């Protein structure tokens, strides 16, 4: 099938070449062409993936024939331009444009290339807390904790106990002490396909066609088609947890197809221009999702047993066999876009647009683990936009802009399968029944309103001042995610004081009220946790840790200052240099701290052309970024 497709792909192009080549003999003045063929090859030492990431000769070592064709035909109002380049089956480009008396205009292309992908070796994650046997301390000889002497449990004196803390291997604390399990946790990475090379071959067919019927000269019809195929293998990383954090990397087959069909019409009626476009997109992943064999649910140090006592703590583990993960859902998209523009006298114009988009993606249950209340997740987008531009006098231009957006995304109900044997020993808790019927609320659902005013003032000849203000309000459907108000003020000046020198300076200030944050994401007060984290006393991550967090976290700023300056000096036609500096300062004052980030980016480019056919470019870019942030450190004790 693929072979047949390869033969058929260039067929339309070749069919066009044949009559045009024949006509070249009869009217040589209207035809020009270049045909080239030969051999091309590459030799590679060491790793090919980075040095030949996007190939331009061949995708792997070897030699093969290549071919190139450029063709231009102009005859009686018909113009055809075509180029064809074939290096190997995974590195080729074919393009053609045809204009038939400006009534029918079409462009079509086929493009294929291979992208070598990175291979994460997963050899930098390993960490472990040694098992209890490495600790030899006792009540009489309470050795301190060090990374190499870790007991399974640490006994902390309760009030009234005067003897010091020490470690041991029993979950039951001695009288006067409380116990906390701290030993035997591990984190390790494992590359299951260490010798695999990952790559994706991308092939795209595309055509854009405009048709203007002479009987309807005000209307132009548009038809566009795009088909993108991605095939290959990429690395997929998954994780098991319980006995240890076990991170594995394996291969994931990719066989994705994205097909776009769009049609529309543009109408010109005097001062009014109207455009309507409909797009239908279909995405399919035809390869099966990778599967993963999860680690057994075990207490650290225990031997594996079928239906072991820890099976009642995890919804799935080794006994479930290979399970799907890292699946890419199929999806469909339909979009309608309407645009209208009126060009008024005096360089004034009015523009309006409406966009309606609906996307659905497929979801599926995992039998025996969870079920969903819907098999299609639907998102919708509606937007109205408008812009009015007018000129006041000879030097001042105003633009007033506005846009409303409504985004809706389905909430999803998830029903987890009840674990058997919950609430039994050892150390098992009984889950809250409501936690088995969860709802995933969408942070995507929101209403957004934007209004802006821009002014452009010509200060003097070759000097322009631009001022702008934007206000954007985002009302999220789920109040937990909050609402945001964003004020943006912009100012810039462009000047060209002489024929050899030009410069630009700009400043942007943003004030964001309530940017997107994760509320109560970290910082459990130790007054709540101390003395209550002993395994066996029944604390859970949800109730005893997550629900007691107090600090909001975010990497989104509530205040932004950004400045840019650049200057270009071109003393002659063979030399030009540009210097620039960009600075950006952001911060967010959160309830328990602040997130701050400052970046500096100076740079210099120099271009020199000693002769008409030789040009040199030197570029230097430097970036420095400083971030101050509160982090949530995981304590990975199983």
């Amino acid at each position, binding site marked *: 099938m693929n072979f047949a497709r390869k033969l058929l792909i260039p067929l339309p192009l070749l069919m066009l070449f044949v009559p045009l080549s024949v006509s070249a003999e009869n009217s040589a003045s209207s035809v*020009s062409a270049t045909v*080239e063929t030969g051999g091309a090859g*590459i030799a590679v*030492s*060491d790793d090919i*993936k980075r*040095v030949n990431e996007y190939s331009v000769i061949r995708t792997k070592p070897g030699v093969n024939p290549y071919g190139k064709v450029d063709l231009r035909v102009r005859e009686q109002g018909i113009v055809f331009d075509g180029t064809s380049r074939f290096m190997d089956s995974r590195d080729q480009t074919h393009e053609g444009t045809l204009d038939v008396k400006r009534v029918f205009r079409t462009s079509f292309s086929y493009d294929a290339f291979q992208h070598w992908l990175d291979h994460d070796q997963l050899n930098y994650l390993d960490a472990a807390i040694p098992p209890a046997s490495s600790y030899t301390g006792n009540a009489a000889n309470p050795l301190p904790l060090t990374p190499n002497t870790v007991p399974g449990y640490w006994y902390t004196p309760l009030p009234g106990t005067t003897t010091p803390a020490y470690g041991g291997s029993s979950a039951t604390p001695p009288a006067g002490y409380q116990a906390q399990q701290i030993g035997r946790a591990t984190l390790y990475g494992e590359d299951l396909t260490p010798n695999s090379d990952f790559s994706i071959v991308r092939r795209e067919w595309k055509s854009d066609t405009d048709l203007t019927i002479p009987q309807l000269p005000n209307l132009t019809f548009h038809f566009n088609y795009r088909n993108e195929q991605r095939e290959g293998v990429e690395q997929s990383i998954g994780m098991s947890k319980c006995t240890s954090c076990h991170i594995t990397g394996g291969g994931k087959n990719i066989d994705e197809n994205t097909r776009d069909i769009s049609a529309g019409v543009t109408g010109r009626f005097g001062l009014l221009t109207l455009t309507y476009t409909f797009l239908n997109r279909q995405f399919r992943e035809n390869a099966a999702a990778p599967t993963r064999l999860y680690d057994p649910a075990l207490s650290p140090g225990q031997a594996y047993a079928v239906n072991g006592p820890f099976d009642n703590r995890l919804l799935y583990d080794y006994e479930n066999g290979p399970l799907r993960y890292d699946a890419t859902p199929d999806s469909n998209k339909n979009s309608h876009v309407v645009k209208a523009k009126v060009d008024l006298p005096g360089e004034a114009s009015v523009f309006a647009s409406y966009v309606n988009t609906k996307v659905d993606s497929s979801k599926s249950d995992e039998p025996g683990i969870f079920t969903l209340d819907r098999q299609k997740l639907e998102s919708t987008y509606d937007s109205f936009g408008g812009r009015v531009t007018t000129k006041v006098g000879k030097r001042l231009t105003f633009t007033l802009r506005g846009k409303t957006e409504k985004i809706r995304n389905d909430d999803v109900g998830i029903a987890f399968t009840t674990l058997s044997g919950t609430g039994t020993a050892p150390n098992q808790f009984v889950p809250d029944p409501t936690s088995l019927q969860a709802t995933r609320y969408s942070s995507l659902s929101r209403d957004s309103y934007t209004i802006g005013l821009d002014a452009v003032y010509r200060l003097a000849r070759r000097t322009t001042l631009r001022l702008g203000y934007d206000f954007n309000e985002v009302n999220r459907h789920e109040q937990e995610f909050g609402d945001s108000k964003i004020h943006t003020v912009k100012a810039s000046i462009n000047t060209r004081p002489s024929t050899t020198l030009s410069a630009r300076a700009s400043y942007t200030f943003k004030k964001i009220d309530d940017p997107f944050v994760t509320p109560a994401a970290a910082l459990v007060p130790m007054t709540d946790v101390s003395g209550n984290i002993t395994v066996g006393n029944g604390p859970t991550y949800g109730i005893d840790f997550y629900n007691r967090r107090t600090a909001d976290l975010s990497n989104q700023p509530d205040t932004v200052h950004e400045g840019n300056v650049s200057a270009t000096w071109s003393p002659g036609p063979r030399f030009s240099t540009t210097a620039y500096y960009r600075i950006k300062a952001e911060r967010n004052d959160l309830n328990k701290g602040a997130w701050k980030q400052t970046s500096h980016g100076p740079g210099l480019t120099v271009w020199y052309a000693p002769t008409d056919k030789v040009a040199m470019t030197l570029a230097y870019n430097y970036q420095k970024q400083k971030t101050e942030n509160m982090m949530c450190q995981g304590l990975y004790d199983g």
Partner: protein
Amino acid sequence: MYNDAKARINGLYFPSLAELGYTDAVLTSSFYALEDLPAIQEYSDLHYRQIDLSVGGTYNVTTNLFVTAQAGFQQFIDDAPYVYGDQDGTVYSGSLGIGYRF
């Protein structure tokens, strides 16, 4: 083309649990100390160099007939291998062709 790129993170600082006000005996032991985490910044050192040289020419045998040749040398030098291993690599490329224009 020659490209020399370096990137690194430094100044990574984590306060100790004591600085954060935690006094619990277990948590403030060296086992959970945060002071060692700045070692992470050593992983961030990245340094690579790229060389891309190519030369080509076309000789017009007649007004219509020409021969063309191209040679290329690309090298990626990974001076700080980390997550993806040593990505050093060299590619030698070449092509020889004949063409006709009309």
